[in-house]
């Protein structure tokens, strides 16, 4: 198996910064680190196994109804993830609320099934799905780190910036309210894309 299937989605073909898929959820669930990590794990599992299942089924599905079958498979996996989250990590499930359900519509999943799983063997498909999920999760965690640190002064809910620094305790510091708002997530994604493109010149269109 080609090693690139695993390594590409992390940097060279990252689903968020290069393919620009899955932007919606990267704006919505990145205010805090914890939900972002749970979201990243959930998406990784769903992309991986939906890719695997679709790859196994790929020669038996009539081409005309493939989208419906894909949706059924993805929906099943998402419901599984949702139920597991509700059972074992209720608080996070509450925080993520509707966005777990909306994994079904995450462009990355359909994108990888259509682009990869329908034309490849099961094992590479599984690897491709997992790697794309992780590439997505990597960016998600990076955004959430910046937003939680500067927006709330915490990481994983633990206070990092000393409380004495805050204006209300006689200091000078204040949390950046813009970080909490979704537009800032978009700006951070943009900045990450900017950094990546300055390293990877072939991505820059004329």
């Amino acid at each position, binding site marked *: 198996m080609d090693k690139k299937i695993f390594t590409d989605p992390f940097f060279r073909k990252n689903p968020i910064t290069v393919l620009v898929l899955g932007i919606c959820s990267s704006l919505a669930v990145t205010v805090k680190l914890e939900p972002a990590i749970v979201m990243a794990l959930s998406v990784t599992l769903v992309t991986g196994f939906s890719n695997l299942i679709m790859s196994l089924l790929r020669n038996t599905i009539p081409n005309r109804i493939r989208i419906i079958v894909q949706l059924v498979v993805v929906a099943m996996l998402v419901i599984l993830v949702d139920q597991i989250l509700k059972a074992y990590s209720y608080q996070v499930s509450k925080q993520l609320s509707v966005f777990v359900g909306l994994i079904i519509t995450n462009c990355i999943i359909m994108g990888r099934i259509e682009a990869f799983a329908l034309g490849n063997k099961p094992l590479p498909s599984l690897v491709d799905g997992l790697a794309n999920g992780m590439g997505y999760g990597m960016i998600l965690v990076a955004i959430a780190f910046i937003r939680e640190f500067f927006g709330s002064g915490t990481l994983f809910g633990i206070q990092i910036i000393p409380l004495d620094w805050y*204006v209300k305790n006689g200091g*000078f510091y*204040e949390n*950046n*309210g*813009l*970080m909490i*708002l979704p537009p800032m997530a978009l*700006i951070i994604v*943009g*900045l990450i894309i*900017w950094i990546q493109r300055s390293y990877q010149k072939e991505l820059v269109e004329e």
Partner: protein
Amino acid sequence: MKVLKNIVEKVKPTFDKGGRLHFLHSTFDAFETFLLVPSATTHKGVHVRDSIDLKRTMSVVIIALIPAMLFGMWNTGYQHNLSIGATSDFWPTFWFGFLKVLPLLIVSYVVGLGIEFASAQIRGHEVNEGFLVSGILIPLIMPIDVPLWILALAVAFAVIVGKEVFGGTGMNIWNPALLARAFVFFAYPSHITGDKVWIEGLSSGTGVIDGFSGATPLAAAAEGTATPSFLDMFIGTIPGSIGETSTLAILIGAAFLIYTGVASWKVMVSTFTGGFLIALLFNALAPGAADPSSYLNVPAINHMVMGGFAFGAVFMATDPVTGCQTEKGKWIYGFLIGVMAILIRVFNPGYPEGMMLSILLLNTFAPLIDHYIVQSNIKKRLSRAKNI
């Protein structure tokens, strides 16, 4: 001049190709053209020459801003004296405000120009004068009590995200100065809203006389309490952002801008017209004497001198980069800025000042307005050509 010239000539080889400090050549070029008129001429081809270039335009705008800035400095001291119940002569009052405004100006210029120089260096561009006006505009639209580190962050945000990512001066979609203010407004709302931040020393609460309120006229109008008289607001002896309070000083600047032809009088006139007409409409719709505290009742003429309306109309809306380019478009653009500003003021209690948001919104739509003006012009000419 001779001395300067000699120094420049002497250090020049170090910055030329192959020189030790060649990587800093943009910085050197910037200072050379700033200090002297360079003797270098173009080698081939004809270039369009005009006595008004970027540097001239920027200088004119800065001169136009001086009345508003000087008045803002005096007003800072005046408002401070009011809050502590003291009186003082003209010069000590002015000096007090000068010392308070100066650090804001320095921080704004150091951070902004630093980023401009660095990015010009990285890209191998020439350093241009794009930030000279923004650097003075940004402190003028901030409250006097804004912490310096927040100002620095806002300037950095405005220059990097507002201007450099789009390709630098002349390529930006939004007015950088307003973007800096919008950044502070959304990121650190407690430092730019409320009735404490507009007067030096009020937020630390030292020596405030009883019953003194630092609320701006806009906040007073939103709460339905009495606003200062028209004359006070016109002259500018009211709390507010540093440069925006005195409509009189702004109009002096506006006259200068129009006289020199640097800013478009069409945008200014249509902005005031739009704001005035919509405010008149609200007055007509207002419940009248039944509810005197209603925001709808604020006289249309008062809207023109409250808050940053005049400042925005004269110095922000007329920005040639972010505004409309077509002549018909300028009328539409300015009119809608006025309408939106008053609309946001009156109907959105969360945003007491609508001018900032309204100009940013219309900046976004300016290319679209231009597009349709150009298209309709093309269509008109085509149909005329067909008829012949």
